[in-house]
């Protein structure tokens, strides 16, 4: 039957998507410092090594700090942007929205080079702050999109109701709009966090030689000496992504967040 073929097709593609991950997970379990699959002499020693070897601990810390702060930055820029675009029309709104969506839509190498020359001009090339701000701008698109979805899902009558009950503009914002979009702000932050952790080219161009992140470290290891720790990091990143998106799927409406229902009339 056709339903059977559909499931088979979906299953096959998912299998292809998961296969490399399974192999990497298997590699990470090797006892010896080799990339064998199926792994030989199962061991978790490389998982411990990630948190003991300074070689890997520093990039791990860098990556986490950059992801946490740059996502916060992205949300801080995206929130007023989405609010403005939602509540007002006109060229400024359209321009801001384009500007908010553009960074993630362009080939990242272009933005990366733009950031490189910018930080070189400012004399901040190679500093972690440069990576953080660059990631913040690059990832601003994600919270812009999720927060805009949240705002467009608000029943306008809620805001009018608050106004008739005596809420001035600022109070409406604080007591109605913000509480209602908190889930969307959080999922925007989570999206940006996960993607910042995984981002390579911008981090590399802006401060690749001084501020090593995990993706940079993995790439360097790919060239200068394989170790199962690469597999360990990959597995941890995948688990983190599954946990974050799984949480969003569990407590939010993921199909809707991905645009399944008509939430915005165009």
């Amino acid at each position, binding site marked *: 039957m056709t339903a059977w073929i559909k499931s088979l097709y979906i299953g096959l593609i998912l299998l292809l998507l998961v296969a490399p991950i399974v192999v990497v997970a298997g590699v990470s379990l090797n006892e010896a410092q080799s990339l064998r699959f199926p792994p030989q002499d199962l061991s978790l020693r490389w998982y411990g090594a990630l948190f003991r070897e300074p070689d890997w601990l520093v990039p791990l810390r860098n990556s986490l700090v950059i992801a946490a702060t740059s996502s916060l930055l992205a949300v801080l820029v995206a929130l007023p942007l989405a609010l403005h675009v939602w*509540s007002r029309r006109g060229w400024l709104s359209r321009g801001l929205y384009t*500007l908010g969506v553009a960074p993630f839509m362009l080939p990242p190498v272009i933005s990366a080079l733009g950031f490189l020359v910018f930080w070189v001009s400012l004399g901040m090339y190679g500093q972690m702050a440069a990576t953080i701000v660059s990631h913040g701008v690059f990832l601003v698109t994600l919270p812009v999109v999720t927060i805009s979805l949240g705002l467009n899902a608000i029943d306008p009558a809620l805001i*009018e109701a608050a106004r008739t009950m005596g809420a001035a503009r600022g109070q409406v914002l604080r007591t109605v709009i913000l509480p209602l979009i908190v889930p969307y702000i959080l999922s925007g932050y989570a999206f940006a966090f996960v993607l910042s952790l995984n981002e390579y080219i911008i981090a590399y161009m802006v401060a690749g030689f001084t501020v090593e992140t995990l993706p940079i470290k993995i790439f360097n290891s790919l060239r200068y000496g394989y170790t199962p720790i690469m597999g360990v990091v990959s597995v941890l990143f995948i688990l983190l992504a599954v946990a974050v998106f799984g949480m969003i799927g569990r407590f939010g409406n993921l199909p809707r967040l991905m645009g399944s229902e008509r939430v915005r009339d165009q």
Partner: protein
Amino acid sequence: MSAPQKATPGWLAAIPALALGIFFIVPFAIMLSVSVAHRVPGGFFEPGFELASYIRFLSAFFGSILVTSITISAAAAAICVTLAFPFTVFLAGMGRRAQTWILVILLSVLSLSEVIIGFSLSTLLSKTAGVGNLLAWLGILETSRAFTPSLFALLTGMCYLGFPYAVLVLYPPVSRLDPELGEAARTMGASPLRTFFGVTLPLLRAPVLGALVLVFVFTLGVYLLPQVLGRPQHWTLSVHITDQAIFQSNLPFAAAMAVLLLVVTLMLVGLTLLLGRDAGARQ
């Protein structure tokens, strides 16, 4: 009813306008000015206006790189969307729970670093771990062999990278498509295959085009995969941009290439928007 007018104070716009103006527009402006600046060998560059970097790009060597980049990306985009379109249609027809879980997998794959994807695939396609071993064990190959580096490995990587994006671009319009349209065609005697090509696909012409362009643009910017999975002749424009910027210290030339890549990208996006509007107007 539309969103309430002026629910937010006007000065709120200043925050994103300033942030993105300084940290997004200005970098592009600087990049533009660097692309016409004069290169100082050994140092960075000095301000000026010359088209030397652009002219250099027109040489046969870099021209062929552009053609290679575009060909590889176009092939990846075509394969990706061909696989993603039926996937999305089937996905949208599933229950909410199943959809949620498949979306979680897709988002997780989407968020994966190019480095990790390159590493995973190079492991999967390597001699010691993965497909080679499996095929040898099954007796299809006499002895295990590596499938990387090769054009095949590079295209696989690009499709792996682009696939979740293609699905997520197609997902909203596909899931909003009235399932009754297809059912109506079915009751009138159209076979599932004819329904698919006669009703579903034409209705989604604009989103399919959009997905093609997005994956194309996205893979055009791929930097690591060509180095990990491909041979030097498969190096794309992105690899050369980074190479010029970081290792050859030729920022003006790197900037000129980036500007050209930007122009190509914007032209394609504009073209898609135009075609999409056409398709929309006809419906």
